[in-house]
């Protein structure tokens, strides 16, 4: 057990965790973790998939109770056992998926925390006039300049929903702020606002707990970094005295070799797998590009630029307004994902929980859902055959748990491996991956990149849509940049850097 390094500036303890373990059926998520956080510091909690970092954050905020051990919040005598207690204790928790009520206005959403203490605030729906100014101010500080107070939560883009949730820090008194992978769905455009917000919080004496596995963000914000691995606290380091390499090594358990940009093979004279011409769909307009067998093409753009529209319209999830899509020279226009799959197009959805896997299905059932025909005769399943194949796939893709484990109980990275296995089993010619590593930690990311490369090695066409320039540069041969629905630029990954991509996506201003 490593003892915590005392915070240098302000030694006032904000919370302390002593000998805490947490058991879930079949899994010990945390084991004997002791950790303290101090006022006016940013404590990053880092770890790979399933290391227990989100579990720890949930325990501190009273969303679940530890199996053994104690958690003490300074200035609060009772134990925190519910979100309501957490409010009283001054803990503000920012979920990975922001809690925004679709049918409430932006202003009502901003003051949502006051809903639970309606007694103290009188009628929360009748927001006093002076609060309008406060609300506008709060929105400005999180960079939401173009949003009106009266517009409904459901009209906001995912990025703006997250920023709105963060806006609550301005209007809700708190002593501890927990950001649980909050930046996973924020894009690079909003990141500066998050950084500024955290800086203000620190100055105001809040203890900020930042759960993340994204190293640039951790090092941009954190004072101390607590590293979890397999449910144990491995080390608490001062951010100034360590570096990315060391933290990642501790997270993963052994040194990681960063993947280098792949040199582009020559595709001259080879017929393309995919030819897209004049594609218009959603916000995408007149998109033309080709993908060759064995080629990995990235699509980069800001949120709302139309990059997902391209992916979804190719794969039958969204209707095309015009344009043609050819697969091996044959024109295809799938009207549903099922039809696209028959054409040999697989689409890994961005929203894993909704479209990626079936909620109540086990890993095995999820992995075979798209290919049940392989395990059945006249519609009757052969359970033995199916189970054998599932075991092979679990082994092959290094999925945690076994074929009977519920997919939803796994970490994001393992869930994604299950989804990938499902699609690869369908033996598609073209694989479209929409934000394949969203909310996934570094160890599993490398796993997923490896799988993507193997797909290319098998001469499949691969399209990767991502909002992370660094990721695309690492795995793609060629990157297309989309801005306001139009394809504005194209880069060879070996000859460009994140700066080029960002500049093209933003339109020159950076």
């Amino acid at each position, binding site marked *: 057990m490593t003892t915590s390094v005392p915070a240098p500036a302000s030694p006032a303890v904000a919370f302390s965790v002593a000998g805490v373990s947490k058991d879930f*059926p*079949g*899994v*010990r998520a945390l084991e004997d973790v002791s950790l303290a956080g101090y006022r006016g510091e940013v404590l990053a909690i880092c770890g*790979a998939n399933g290391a227990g970092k989100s579990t720890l954050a949930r325990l501190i905020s009273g*969303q*679940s109770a530890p199996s053994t051990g104690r958690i003490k919040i300074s200035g609060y005598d009772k134990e925190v056992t*519910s*979100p309501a207690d957490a409010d009283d204790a001054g803990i503000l928790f920012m*979920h*990975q*998926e922001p*809690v925004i009520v679709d049918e409430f206005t932006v202003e009502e959403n901003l003051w949502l925390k006051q809903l639970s203490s309606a007694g103290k605030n009188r009628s929360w729906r009748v927001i006093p006039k002076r609060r309008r100014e406060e609300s506008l101010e709060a929105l400005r500080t999180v960079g939401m300049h173009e949003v009106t107070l009266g517009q409904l939560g459901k009209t906001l883009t995912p990025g703006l929903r997250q920023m709105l949730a963060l806006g609550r820090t301005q209007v809700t008194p708190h002593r501890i702020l927990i950001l649980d992978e909050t930046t996973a769905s924020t894009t690079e455009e909003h990141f500066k606002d998050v950084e500024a917000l955290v800086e203000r919080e620190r100055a105001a004496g809040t203890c900020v707990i930042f759960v993340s596995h994204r190293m640039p963000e951790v090092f941009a914000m954190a004072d101390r970094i607590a590293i979890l*691995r*397999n449910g144990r606290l491995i080390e608490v380091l001062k951010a100034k005295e360590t570096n990315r390499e060391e933290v990642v090594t501790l997270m*993963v*358990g*052994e040194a*990681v070799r960063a993947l280098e940009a792949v040199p582009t093979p020559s595709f001259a004279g080879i017929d393309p797998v995919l030819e897209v011409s004049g594609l218009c769909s959603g916000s995408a307009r007149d998109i033309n590009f080709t993908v060759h067998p064995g080629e990995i093409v990235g699509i980069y753009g800001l949120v709302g630029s139309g990059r997902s529209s391209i992916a979804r319209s190719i794969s039958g*999830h969204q209707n095309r307004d015009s344009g043609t899509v050819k697969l091996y020279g044959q024109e295809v226009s799938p009207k*549903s*994902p*099922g039809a*696209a*799959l*028959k054409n040999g197009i697989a*689409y890994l*959805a961005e929203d894993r*929980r*909704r*479209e*990626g*896997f*079936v*909620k*109540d*299905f086990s890993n095995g*059932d999820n992995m075979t*859902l*798209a290919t*049940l*025909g392989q395990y*059945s005769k006249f*519609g*009757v*399943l052969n*359970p033995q055959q199916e189970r054998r194949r599932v075991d092979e796939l679990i082994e092959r893709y*290094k999925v*945690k748990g076994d074929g009977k484990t519920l997919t*939803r109980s796994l970490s994001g990275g393992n869930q994604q491996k299950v989804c990938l296995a*499902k699609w690869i089993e*369908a033996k598609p010619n073209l694989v479209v991956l929409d934000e394949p590593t969203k909310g996934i930690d570094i*160890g599993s990311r*490398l*796993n997923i990149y490896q799988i993507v490369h193997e797909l290319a090695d098998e001469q499949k066409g691969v399209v990767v849509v991502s909002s992370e320039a660094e990721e695309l540069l690492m795995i793609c041969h060629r990157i297309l940049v989309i801005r306001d629905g139009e394809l504005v630029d194209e880069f060879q990954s070996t000859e460009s850097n994140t700066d080029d991509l960002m500049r093209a996506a933003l339109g020159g201003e950076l």
Partner: protein
Amino acid sequence: MTTTATKDVSAKAGRGSTRTRGLIHWAKGQYPLYILIALLIVAALSTDSFFTARNLTNLILQASVIGIVVLAQFLIVLTGGIDISVGSVVGLAGVMSAMIIGGASVPLAIIVAIAVGVLIGLLNGYFVAFRGLEPFIVTLGMLSLARGLVYTFTEGVPVQPQAENFRAIATATILGFPLIGIIWLVLALAVWFMARRTVFGRRIFAIGSSPEAAYASGVPVKQTLLAVYIIAGAMVGFAGFLLASRVGVGTPTAGTLYELDSIAAVVIGGASLRGGKGSVLGAVFGTLIFGIITNLLVLLNVSTFLQDAFRGGLILVAVVMTTVHFRSGKKKTVLSIP
């Protein structure tokens, strides 16, 4: 890669206890069985007339028709839907089977009953799957429509079929066991096979659990839903014939409140009304629990009014038990995203 080391650790920690945990988990989910056993003990202690061949036969006869309706309801609940038109369809199918060519031919009567069920299932399924309407509202409309037709056709008077062997199926026994009970169990086995051993069944579970994910995985969601409603309709129609056959006439009020009883039995059997969860065995147990309670209350001379209260109370107890069961695996928070 890193995973080899971590995998070993987690495997060691988990393996020893997974099997016992799995058993405990299974046992935890079998509360319909426990209710059933408890009921049988109560029955044995409270009256001598329960465990008699005559009473048990009677019990099976009563449970079989509703049991088949429960199987149909079970399939629809699995998809995340609900069918409250089943009672009216039982009535309509029964009356029609006794009316067609005067009820002179039993095979024709069966075909007519099933056809009535299929037709109504087709309509329900079309509205739910292809029009995207709420199953509750669609089948609510169908409940009134079908019952109204029954009263119109019969003018409220029971229909006497001509065929002398109209009651044969319902009264026949095989080795002393009522044929109608065997039909029920065979259908239960068939539904189990369909749900657990076929591609179609897997798709039903997927649709009930996550329709979007099922659609994205290439499952023909609309067609599957339509097929489920048609299959359920066919079973309900057949149940309608069996009921008419058992009573010997096509009664206009036959099947009244079957919708509530069947939904209750499905829920008592552990299925989730949100869809995607449930077992055929549970549905069969649910039917038996309901049947035994009714039977016991009659044997104990409880007034008919109080009987309803008892059954209502049982539904509430069972539903509370299901929430206890399902919640144990979930987090308690309301606002957190699952």
